[in-house]
């Protein structure tokens, strides 16, 4: 009898918790969609921030995130490959692995401050490059971690089989091991991209923001997330509506990238 009651209590509590958790998520999504869609119009996408649109912000955000990916993906992947395939789990490798894990959970504002001290203050002002560097620093440990983990899932027999067929180590790694881990690594890269595309803190005082369309990374650079942060606190209705619209667009982008990642993992099975 007691056990039945206990079972019911636990069931009730866990259901309640789930409802609360998911409830908040839907609350956010519904508010965001409602306020966001009602503030959206075609001109939101064709105008720059100075004219009440987000065109330059989208381009700026993607430019910085893509540039960061171009730097972070090769560095992170090579580091991950070294950790898993070449380091033989030496002490140095474990130090690097742990450091990378710590970096991954480092508060993004700290990375922002760090980049500010090194690449903003000495150059006399906010610039797009600093934003790219901050995002790169955020991304590298995630890519290292993904590559390392996904390679560790490849059975060691597969490497041995390649070697036993007369392959050299680097050929086996490139042609077989990475191929076997391809889906996992690609998914990890997509998810890490989704993570940095929505970052605000590392950009806040590195690239800052710009109202105008620019591709000049030596200047302040337009950013969707920093704009949301700014616009949301403005007193006028139009700015706040634009913040809702921008938030909605950002959420959809992150959602799509996440779904792509999930879709890839599911297809593998």
């Amino acid at each position, binding site marked *: 009898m007691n056990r039945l009651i206990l079972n019911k209590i636990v069931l009730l509590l866990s259901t309640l918790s789930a409802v609360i958790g998911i409830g908040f998520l839907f609350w956010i999504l519904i508010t965001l969609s409602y306020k966001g869609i009602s503030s959206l119009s075609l001109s939101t996408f064709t105008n720059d921030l100075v004219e009440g649109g987000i065109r330059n912000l989208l381009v700026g955000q993607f430019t910085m995130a893509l540039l960061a990916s171009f730097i972070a993906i090769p560095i992170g992947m090579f580091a991950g490959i070294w950790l898993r395939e070449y380091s033989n789990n030496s002490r140095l490798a474990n130090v690097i692995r742990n450091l990378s894990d710590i970096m991954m959970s480092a508060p993004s504002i700290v990375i922002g401050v760090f980049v500010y001290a090194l690449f903003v203050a000495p150059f006399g002002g906010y610039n797009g490059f600093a934003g790219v560097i901050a995002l790169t620093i955020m991304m590298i440990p995630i890519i290292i971690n993904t590559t390392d983990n996904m390679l560790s899932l490849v059975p060691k027999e597969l490497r041995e089989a390649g070697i036993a*067929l007369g392959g050299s180590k680097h050929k086996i790694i490139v042609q077989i091991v990475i191929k076997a881990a391809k889906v996992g690594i690609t998914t990890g890269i997509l998810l890490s991209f989704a993570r940095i595309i929505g970052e605000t803190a590392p950009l806040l005082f590195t690239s800052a923001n710009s109202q105008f369309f620019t591709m000049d990374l030596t200047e302040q650079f337009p950013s969707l997330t920093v704009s949301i942060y700014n616009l949301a606190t403005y007193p006028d209705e139009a700015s706040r509506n634009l913040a809702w619209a921008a938030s909605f667009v950002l959420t959809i982008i992150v959602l799509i990238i996440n779904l792509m990642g999930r879709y890839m993992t599911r297809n593998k099975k």
Partner: protein
Amino acid sequence: MKNKNLIMKVKDFNFTYAGVQEPSLKQINLPIEKNKITALIGPSGCGKSTLLRAMNRIHDLYPGNQYQGEINLYGKSEKSNILELTKENDLIELRQQVGMIFQKPTPFPMSIFDNVAYGLKLAGLKDKDELEAKVHKALQDAAIWKETKDRLHSSALGLSGGQQQRLCIARAVALKPDVLLFDEPTSALDPISTGAIEELISTLKEEVSVVIVTHNMQQASRLSDYTAFMYLGDLIEYDKTETIFMNPAQKLTEDYITGRFG
């Protein structure tokens, strides 16, 4: 003169794993007869897989392991002590002469055709027609041609476990090795697949010499011509399989074979 019938000869061989004081193999002496099947048996941890993995120097993948003594290969090239090889190219050549099949099937994540062609390409074969002919021949030799001829370009991962294992054998056979090493090749397979693999191995010996590590005593007695019994890093007894199973010289061998321990 006796060497004429040998493909390999292990002489006073010691092997020590990285970071361990005690050698895992002690003073092993073992002949491997040409075009015969030699089985290595013994309880877990006796060193039979360690010995097998020394014969193609796959231990070199992990640094710090130590070899002592000789393992001579009397292959297509002249006699050579494979433990003296140091250059990566020489090791690659060794592994083309001494192939290996693992416990779990290890198909590469590519098509059936590419799996078999992979080793040939590594060996430098580029001519497309020749490649195709050799791949087809290898699949036939490994008795998997019928099942795969209509799906050569679909993924090898879609094959059943037994088929995957035969594909791995085809992959190794394609290189025309002198020796094939089998590391418990059927322990992950069902009885029917096991039967197919065993049959395949016994036909292979016309072309290659076979060394097989097995936990399955029936398998050793069914398949092999010679059997070596190992225990705790020592080679206890080596003889014709018949003799080992019917009339072993050592008490330890008899105890193991009759199932009194192990």
